[in-house]
């Protein structure tokens, strides 16, 4: 009842090909947009913005990036953290070379460096598949991390080896550095993430996205009907690394403010990979869900557990959080191996006929 499609007739091709063909979805997305753009900014505290929403959106974008590669094109990658690092370091270098450049332009440009590196490390994917490819992307992770530590030019010969983001303004508003308002940073991250999500969703529905999925489902069949694996695979690597690069740049510019090379370690790659798998491979909503699950849940538990009146030590909260999140990951993967996005799909099916058992 709640999710009835009956009666919604499509009379034009445009209507049939809309991103959200269902009225309920359109209402839902409007509500979410209202929440994200109006309610959150009006009600949220600084802690909520800086520690929950901004990182959540950044991780969601990174998860979308990995999802393009792993979920849509079927190429397993363990180098996400390093590709995010490439974005962060190139954005940092760009701002120090062009200090007056618009920060959004710098962000979007830094993704291209990351895309180029991604394509270079994607070349082996033309010959090797699956776990073997995972190993070569792992090599990319270690090599790039080594570069972040060993090439002092990347961090402007800073004695501490970290990149530190200084204050930058855009149209008279401070957007980076410690003086920037969390709300400003949240808005920028929100707009970039939503914009790129929209872009990717259209890419996936189009010719390029279909090529990726054909390669994923059966590469020989795809080749036989004229899909060039070279362009399909490398474009997936490029788009994926681009998104991860932008996410990495935003991570340093709008969230952390400074980063050591260890911020882009293998653990970050795994964090994003878990978000992608748990959220659902090959699903954009899933990327958001996965990011919410992996990022927001632990933070929320850390805040909520003590405020519920459990008088526990800080490290016990940490242990409890790891245990609860770990148990939930196992639980979700057993009940629904296709991730949270699939769960949502099933819920929608159920809601179509609810409260009746059969349609």
């Amino acid at each position, binding site marked *: 009842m709640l999710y009835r499609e009956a009666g919604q007739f499509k009379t034009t091709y445009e209507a049939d090909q809309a991103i959200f063909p269902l009225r*309920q*979805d359109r209402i*839902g*997305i409007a*509500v*979410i947009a209202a*929440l*994200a753009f109006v309610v*959150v900014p009006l*009600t*949220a*505290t*600084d*802690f*909520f913005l*800086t*520690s*929950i*929403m901004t*990182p959540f959106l950044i991780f969601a974008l990174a998860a979308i990036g990995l999802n393009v590669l792993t979920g849509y094109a079927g190429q397993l990658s363990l180098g996400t953290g390093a590709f995010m690092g490439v974005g962060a370091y190139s954005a940092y270098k760009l701002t*120090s070379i062009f*200090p007056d450049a618009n920060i959004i332009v710098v962000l979007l440009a830094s993704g291209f460096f990351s895309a180029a590196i991604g394509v270079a490390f994607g070349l082996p994917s033309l010959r090797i598949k699956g776990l073997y490819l995972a190993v070569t992307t792992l090599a990319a992770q270690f090599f790039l991390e080594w570069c972040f*530590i060993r090439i002092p030019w990347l961090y*402007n010969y800073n*004695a*501490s*080896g*970290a990149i*530190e983001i*200084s*204050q930058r303004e855009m149209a008279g508003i401070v957007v980076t550095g*410690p003086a920037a308002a969390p709300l400003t940073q949240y808005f920028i991250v929100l707009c970039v993430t939503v914009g790129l999500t929209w872009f990717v969703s259209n890419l996936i529905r189009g010719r390029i996205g279909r090529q990726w999925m054909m390669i994923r489902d059966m590469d020989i069949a795809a080749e036989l009907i004229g899909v060039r694996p070279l362009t399909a695979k490398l474009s997936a690597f490029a788009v994926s690394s681009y998104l991860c690069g932008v996410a990495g740049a935003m991570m340093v510019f709008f969230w*952390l*403010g*400074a*980063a*050591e*090379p*260890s*911020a882009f*370690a*293998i653990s970050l790659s795994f964090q994003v990979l878990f978000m992608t798998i748990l959220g659902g491979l090959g699903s954009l909503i899933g990327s*958001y*869900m996965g990011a*919410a699950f992996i990022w*927001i849940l632990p*933070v*929320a538990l*850390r*805040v*909520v557990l003590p*405020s519920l009146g459990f008088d526990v*030590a*800080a*490290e016990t*909260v*940490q*242990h409890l959080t790891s245990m609860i999140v770990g148990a939930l990951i196992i639980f979700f993967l057993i009940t629904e191996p296709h991730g949270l996005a699939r769960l*949502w799909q099933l*819920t929608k099916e159920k809601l179509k006929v609810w409260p009746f058992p059969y349609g």
Partner: protein
Amino acid sequence: MKTTLLATGLATAVIAGSFAVAPAQAEDSIYVPLFTYRTGPYAGSGIPIANGMEDYFAMLNERDGGIGGVKIDYDECETGYNTQKGVECYESVKAKNPVVITPYSTGITLQVIPKASVDRIPVLSMAYGLSAAAIGKTFPWIFNAPDTYWDGASAIIKDIARREGGLDGLKGKKIGYIFLDAGYGREPIPLLEDLAKKYGFEMTQYPVAGKEMQNQSSQWLNVRRDRPDYMIMWGWGAMNPTAVKEATKIRYSMDKFYGVWWSGGNDDAAAGGMAAKGFRTLNFNGVGKDYPVIQDIKKYVVDAGKSQVEPAKFADNLYNRGVYNAMLIAEGIRSAQEHSGKKVVTAEDVRNGLEVMNLDEKRIADMGMKDFMAPLKMSCEDHNGHGPLYIVEWDGKDWQKSGEWFEPMTDVVQPLLEAAADEYVKSNAPWPERDVPCAK
């Protein structure tokens, strides 16, 4: 997308609600958040320090009813030595009006430094973090007493020179430097290179990557090949015990192996057992239990069952380091109370308090810390103090004091600090001018 964001919204509301009811600070207490790590790969070093800090504050609250009659409301925030969580900790404690932040990680310190002057909260990174933060003119809100890493490196070179019969004795010597390949371990390199040029010794470097802390055999193979006359280590967490073990394995002469103060954990040296006898590290806090302050902690906190410390690890070296750190915070607050005339001090008062802090022999004796620490004085320009250090030596079971307190080469370090502060300002332009007057 609908559910996600709906669920997010719902979670948002719930969480926002729980933030709204975050306990308001009582009027008559001072809030001191302690960033600690009892989990993760650095927990081995983090736990004794966390215990030491907690127990000192607990003792002050029990024995004196706090500081100047005001209870200290201390609270741990678990960072796991992870910068992401450190930033989260910083944001979560910021709302509760902390008087001082102790990040306990170089990475987190770097992130907090620019925020400190905006949020107007002093940061005390005790002998870690950014060395250049000692320059009070550039970093009015950051304090890194009692010594910077450069003081430490120069002190080790000074002690080596003493054993070689003066600074001229360093000529032609080979000194190996094994370090955690991160900001922390790389920081001393410019100073060591400077000194190497000045005194004519050769420096060889052995970087240890963070994720390979527990596998150092290749580095130590190189050490065996290069045969350096002395070894200096800048390690933390699991790197320390591994290095000590590897050094004993290649039969490196342990009394020529120096560590910075952060390599001086009891568990670090114990990994080499009796074979590690002679291993030495810098220290700025007393070792052992024979100080009135440690006895008071034992009496009021440990024996009363209010401490998390294991009895066998009570008052080990890093525990005492934690006590020293807590003492610095407490003395900052006390000095702020005297300076401002208020009982319940604010973050700005504590900044002033730290700036005028003067821990002389008399005050040290009053605290029950005679011989536990050296006198320390900070000022408007000098946020470090460059206090004297001494060497502790591992006797196979515990650390023993070896030799007297001595000064680091402050004259060499100071120009480098100033240059580094200028460099920081340049690369972080526009860096805010100091807008707080000197506390007098």
